[in-house]
């Protein structure tokens, strides 16, 4: 039994003044919450101890500034919700004590533990629930970042009920097997726990619509070669470099790549949602999107903006936000060389490990890189009026490093659109296929690749390693390989480039529905490695 903290108390002694009655050692209460680091959550136990002593609040457990400020927010929220703040010595511990805690998401858990310790709500009811949310001074619950990873962690550790702010409800509800309650105010929760009010509503998951593309591949006029390359890139998840003069349609093509990619499966979509949840870039009403993400950072982006960073614990960057989707670098040579070269490691490993003072964080970063580049800095629409000296052209082209370009499978030149294609008339190539038609072929090709490499655990051709591709079982027949072997002999193709040609040849053959790449498939693949005329090194 916890004594009421209301002032004045009712007990009186013989001298006629009331004496505060407090029982020692009974006012400990617990609540649960979740700390999120990277896209992983860990359950945090919040303990509150009320003891006699001078009124004051201490908060322990390696919290950052936002956590230590929770004291004042929670105090105001509790008093403005009609309950009283204990006029006692309050010790709040966030356990495990050696795990750094970041952000305002612990506000609700702290408030609930204090209320339970103070006897305002039943302690037993509070202890079994995971609480997430930031409190406004008026007791309103405000949305926080990282709710999806928190819900995953809560479910994994066996929690049955999680209470989140109403705006975060649809996001947390994506996790099956845990009951998600969406609450709006602290007073609503207090009334519910005391049996004087309704249970907060269960949150329902919602998905973003997958139909209604904003852009379609049929918008692109002509450009049969570039469209073909885009289809191959989509089918094999190959990285793509589009080069060509300004206005030819490089940006237009790149923006239409997500539309021809297959929709994400649920597991992949949850990975994407978790990253966007941590970054705080989620659409609140429809958090789960099956459409692959598309990120196009401006060319002034810093290394931290691209790969992730920030003080304390690093936040995800554009490459992680583009996880399972497309990272598009328009005007790629204009980016800082250091920023673009920072992509090399994540391109290989599919994830990025960021070390900061607050600890190391790993974010997934399996993205498809699409770069667009002009042939030179002057940007003349046709190569004829280019005013650049050969030296200036070379310097411009050196801004993309060789090792990075070597990791890009398809190097495609986008030629200016002829008048006939643009305005119609004799010789026009007609309206191109729509995104739906292309994505249907892409899906079939991906299914073929995924089935073929299932024993290796790869779902796209871009993941296949050179040693397997060159091994006896998967090696194309001798006569099919002749062209590639000649390129290797002449030194036009590096050993790594040879593997990339094999990889693309498999994609070309998957798109055609053949069982093994023939000479034609290899020739086409070879053209994307060595067919460059504008000078970007292959």
């Amino acid at each position: 039994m916890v004594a009421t903290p209301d002032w004045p108390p009712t007990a009186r002694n013989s001298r006629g003044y009331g004496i505060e009655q407090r029982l020692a050692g009974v006012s400990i209460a617990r609540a649960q919450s979740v700390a999120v680091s990277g896209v992983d959550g860990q359950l945090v136990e919040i303990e509150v101890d009320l003891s006699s002593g001078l009124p004051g609040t201490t908060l322990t457990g390696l919290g950052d500034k936002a956590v230590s400020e929770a004291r004042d927010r929670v105090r105001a929220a509790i008093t403005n919700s009609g309950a009283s703040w204990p006029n006692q010595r309050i010790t709040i511990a966030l356990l495990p004590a050696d795990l750094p805690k970041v952000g305002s998401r612990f506000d609700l858990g702290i408030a609930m533990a204090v209320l339970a310790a103070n006897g305002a709500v039943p302690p037993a009811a509070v202890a079994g629930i995971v609480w997430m949310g930031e409190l406004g001074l008026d007791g309103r619950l405000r949305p926080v970042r990282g709710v999806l990873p928190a819900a995953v962690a809560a479910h994994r550790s066996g929690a049955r009920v999680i209470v989140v702010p109403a705006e975060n409800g649809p996001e947390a509800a994506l996790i099956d097997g845990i009951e998600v309650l969406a609450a709006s105010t602290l007073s609503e929760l207090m009334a519910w726990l005391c049996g004087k009010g309704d249970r907060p509503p269960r949150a329902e998951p919602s998905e973003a619509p997958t139909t209604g593309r904003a852009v379609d591949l049929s918008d692109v006029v002509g450009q049969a070669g570039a469209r073909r390359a885009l289809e191959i890139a989509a089918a094999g998840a190959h990285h793509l470099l589009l080069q060509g003069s300004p206005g030819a349609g490089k940006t237009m093509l790149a923006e239409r790549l997500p539309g021809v990619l297959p929709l994400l499966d649920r597991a992949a979509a949850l990975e994407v949602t978790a990253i966007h949840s941590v970054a705080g870039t989620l659409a609140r009403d429809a958090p789960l999107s099956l459409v692959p993400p598309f990120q196009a950072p401006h060319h002034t982006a810093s290394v931290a903006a691209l790969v992730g960073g920030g003080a304390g614990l690093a936040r995800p960057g554009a490459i992680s936000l583009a996880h399972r989707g497309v990272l598009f670098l328009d005007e790629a040579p204009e980016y800082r060389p250091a920023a673009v070269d920072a992509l090399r490691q994540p391109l290989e490993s599919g994830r990025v490990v960021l070390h900061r003072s607050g600890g190391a964080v790993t974010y997934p970063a399996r993205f498809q890189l699409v770069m667009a580049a002009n042939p030179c800095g002057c940007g003349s629409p046709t190569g004829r009026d280019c005013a650049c000296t050969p030296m200036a052209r070379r310097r411009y082209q050196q801004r993309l490093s060789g090792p990075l370009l070597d990791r890009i499978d398809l190097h495609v030149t986008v030629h200016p659109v002829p008048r006939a294609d643009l305005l119609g008339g004799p010789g026009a190539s007609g309206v191109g296929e729509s995104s739906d038609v292309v994505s249907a072929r892409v899906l079939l090709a991906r299914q073929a690749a995924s089935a073929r490499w299932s024993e290796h655990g790869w779902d796209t051709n871009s993941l296949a390693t050179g040693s397997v591709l060159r091994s006896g079982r998967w090696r194309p027949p001798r006569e099919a390989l002749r062209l590639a072997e000649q390129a290797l002999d002449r030194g036009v193709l590096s050993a790594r480039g040879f593997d990339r040609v094999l990889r693309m040849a498999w994609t070309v053959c998957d798109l055609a529905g053949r069982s093994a790449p023939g000479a034609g498939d290899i020739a086409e693949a070879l053209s994307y490695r060595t067919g460059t005329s504008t000078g970007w090194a292959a």
Partner: protein
Amino acid sequence: MRVKDALGQYGERVAAAHLIDAGMSIIETNWRCVAGEIDIIASDGRALVFCEVKTRSSLAFGSPAAAVTWVKQRRMRELAVRYLAENPGKWGEIRFDVVAILRPRTGATTLEHLRDVLS
């Protein structure tokens, strides 16, 4: 005499009476030195108790106990050291208590005795 000083003296009388009721004996009240004043010094068995009395007539500025700020707690320690330097003795324990008294204009006076507040 100002009203607030009268209230303070009333509070110290009530506090002393309460400490005696609680089985302690008063050694000294309003002990002064250059650094300030200790409201009540009492003995509780083998313990020497330095007691700060805080009296208020309303809760408008928070509870009386909450007025014992960190600065005031530091001064209580300093005053205790000065007292012990002048009055050496064998005490099993040195303790700091706060007696917080609320005497509203209407209604009953209430008293709260916080023991060992500086631990």
